[in-house]
């Protein structure tokens, strides 16, 4: 009979766990399912802000933007999430083209300039971000390396094995970099540049934030990454410096959207309202260099001088072709 004891105990345990599971689900409404490419830490704060303000709970799955996009494409028309909170502008344009998005006109976004949102309310740009170099000043000093000032400087052989770049196949940060280079130099010159740069690249990471983190921890001297990833590390006290390459940087609008046929549309709308609200933008501005709502200053000022006239539509239209060429060139 004792042997049955274990059986019985296991069954009871199973029931307890099952009960916990269903309790959690019933205690409030089902959490809203969200995809994001934002960093885990940033998302944690944003989600907390949302919950305090609206009481809505969300379940977040973080993926790099390229990864998220291929998931969305393969899942269509049955998306595994109800909304996207943080994604590349160019993917919003593609998603709109493919009819993946639900429109909603949110009142809190009315004062946001028209070029940051879709006229049909299918996507909203909540912040924008740009490429940036993270430089580890300790390593530069100890190895006697010059501080790079421009994209061109990165080709210098002295940086061989010291540069970390994300993989544009998975990382939106890296794709922004690649298309920025194309737009600055022209496509042909751009490929030549990338081929030379490849000689100096120590490794390609999956996530666009990883290079900043690795540089901060002293693994490599130079990381090609995005703005806030660098500023956060600087603020945390690492020997890291942000470098704006002199040729200028491309920027990308970071967007949110509701997926077509989302289950709990009312709540998703509430979330969209919150992100566009004063409180939502206030919270976002703590984590982003620039937010789109007028009257809110992000973590960096006077940014315009560094930005090139980046063409997101070109990026959206040419992504597949550019990536195919990237693969044949660098995955061989």
């Amino acid at each position, binding site marked *: 009979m*004792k*042997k*049955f*004891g*274990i*059986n019985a*105990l*296991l069954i009871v345990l*199973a029931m307890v*766990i099952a009960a916990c*599971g269903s309790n959690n689900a019933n205690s409030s409404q089902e*959490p809203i*399912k*969200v*995809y994001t490419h934002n*960093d*885990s*830490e940033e*998302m*944690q704060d944003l*989600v*907390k802000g949302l919950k305090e303000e609206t009481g809505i709970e*969300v*379940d*977040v*799955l*973080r*993926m*790099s933007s*390229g*990864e998220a996009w*291929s*998931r969305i494409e*393969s*899942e269509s028309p*049955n998306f*595994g*999430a109800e909304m996207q909170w943080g994604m590349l502008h160019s993917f919003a344009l593609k998603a709109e083209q493919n009819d993946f998005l639900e429109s909603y006109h949110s009142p809190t976004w009315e004062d946001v300039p028209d070029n940051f949102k879709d006229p049909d309310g299918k996507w909203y740009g909540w912040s924008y971000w740009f490429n940036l170099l993270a430089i580890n000043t300790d390593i530069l000093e100890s190895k006697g390396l010059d501080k790079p000032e421009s994209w061109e400087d990165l080709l210098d052989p002295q940086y061989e094995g010291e540069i970390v770049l994300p*993989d544009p*196949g*998975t990382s939106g940060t890296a794709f922004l970099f690649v298309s920025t280079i194309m737009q600055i130099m022209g496509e042909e010159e751009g490929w030549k540049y990338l081929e030379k740069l490849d000689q100096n690249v*120590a*490794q*390609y*990471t*999956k*996530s666009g*934030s*990883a290079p900043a*983190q*690795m540089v901060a*921890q*002293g*693994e490599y001297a130079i990381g090609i990454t995005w703005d806030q990833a660098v500023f956060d590390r600087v603020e945390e*006290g*690492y020997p890291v410096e942000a470098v704006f390459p002199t040729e200028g940087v491309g920027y990308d609008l970071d967007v949110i959207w509701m997926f077509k046929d989302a289950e709990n549309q009312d709540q998703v709308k509430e979330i969209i309202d919150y992100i566009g609200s004063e409180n939502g933008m206030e919270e976002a501005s703590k984590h982003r260099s620039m937010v789109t709502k007028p009257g809110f200053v992000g973590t960096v000022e006077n940014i315009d001088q560094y930005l090139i006239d980046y063409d997101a539509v070109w990026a959206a239209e040419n992504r597949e072709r550019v*990536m195919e060429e990237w*693969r044949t060139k660098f*995955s*061989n």
Partner: protein
Amino acid sequence: MEIGSQQRSLQTRPFLREWKRLWSEPLFAIATIILALSIIIFIVAPVFAVLLKSFGIGTGDFTVANYEKFFQTSYYINSLLNSVKAALISTAAVVLLSVVVSLYVTRSQSFVAKTYRGIALLPLVAPPFIFSLSLIILLGRNGVVTQYLNSWFGWEFSIYGFWGVVFAQIIGYFPVGYMLVESTLRTTNTSLEQASQDLGANQWKTIFNITIPLAKSGIIKAGLLVFVMALADFSNPMIIGGGLPFLASDAYLLVVGQQNIEMAAVLGVFLIVPSLLVFIFQTYFLKDTNLETISGESGGNNAPLKGTVKRVITTVTTIFIAFISLMFIMVVLGAFVKIIGINNAFTLEHFSNQTGWDSLYNSIVVSFFGALLAAGLGILQGFLFARKAIPGKKLLEFLTLFGLAVPGTVMGIGYVLIFNGPPFFLTGTVMLLVLNMAFRKIGVGLEAGISKMHQIDTSMEEASQDLGAGPYRTFWSVVLPLLTPAFVAGFVYAFMTAMVSISSVIFLVSPGTNLAATYILNLAEQARIGMASAMSFILIVIVLGCIGLLKILEKKSGVKV
């Protein structure tokens, strides 16, 4: 993990007669059919889907273009070569270390030996890629050790790349090899060793000419298993590979980064073929080992080690065990300090991570039910297969056990292919994760069930029948209680491995059903070593806690697990 089952006498009865006999007990027949169908849907179909996809079937006509592309692209060839080379080196090292550590542990009764044994098995409770993280903390370009080497000797090196992957694999897969080798060495007939020594052979000679040849089957089995596991390793190349191509991680990146499932399927086939070969070899050619020897009965006392032999073996073992411990210490330190090696101030902030805790909760639920199903169904299957005439039994058993051998990446891709559309629509559900875990581990339950059934004499059941109990009552009141220890053993093992497994479920997680191991990998990809260490630490503590709980249960109830 314990692949390979006892070969039983071939059934010669005609198929129809078996079929009729099966239906004489309809409940068992229905159970069998449900089991068979589930195995086909959840193990066979996904693997076939990958196979078909690699030949372009499903979206187009039969084509070998994908394979041509594979062989024409140096990137893929490199990825194959890297995977094979790393797997070979890791296997050689694991086997060698397994023999050394096993010799030490089985030939010493001391407290130290018991402690070493515990530490040697410890990597089982951590996600396999944890050691990549530790290696980066220790030996990265700015690692804790690297810093000193650099300032003292001016040495500069980078652990990223091929050797990083190899080291991480050696530690991660060591317990698998070790368990098998140790149990064979433990059960070696000691009289042969004694005879050898009585005849004047020294200890080296005895070890090389008697001990190791006697343990041959265990060693070969360990080597083969570690080889396929290392070949299919997915997470270490992602973290420490430094962008070097490896088969399993490339297959994953092809799916998630490029939507190129055909090519991923081709890479998957290169993972399946070696697993299949090794599996067939183990099942049909290495018959003398089974789960019973693995769980280890202590034989007579092995001759204690002496002299130089003892010194060499003790030294190697101690260094290696110290290294494993160091890896775990790094994870614990990494979890509790701001940024290890740079800012060593104590902090708990890495633990304040709601998403992390949610994913841990999911992991426990999914692993619990997955293991419950794996052990329960597996053992039911073991009973049916051992006692009932089932047509096509051999094949079904083969397919069930093959579930253990299929590389996770392949299974994951297969599940994406099959369950992402009609008629199933299971993607994004906890159910799919549970099913995936359950059917990847169901072979564990089956092995445990079959070997237990072989120990139970049929006379017990016959007595029950003679006393008037029907077949179901007999099953419920006689057989089931006897199977409980096998169930618990299967459950514990399946639960433990499910908690830390990643390569398959990473394709299947969704918002709200993210699992701890995949979440930790994601943190590691963002290079958030502190948070990743903290979550790993909690995961390890939970798994250890569960094992401890079951050990207590085992003692209290007197059931040997």
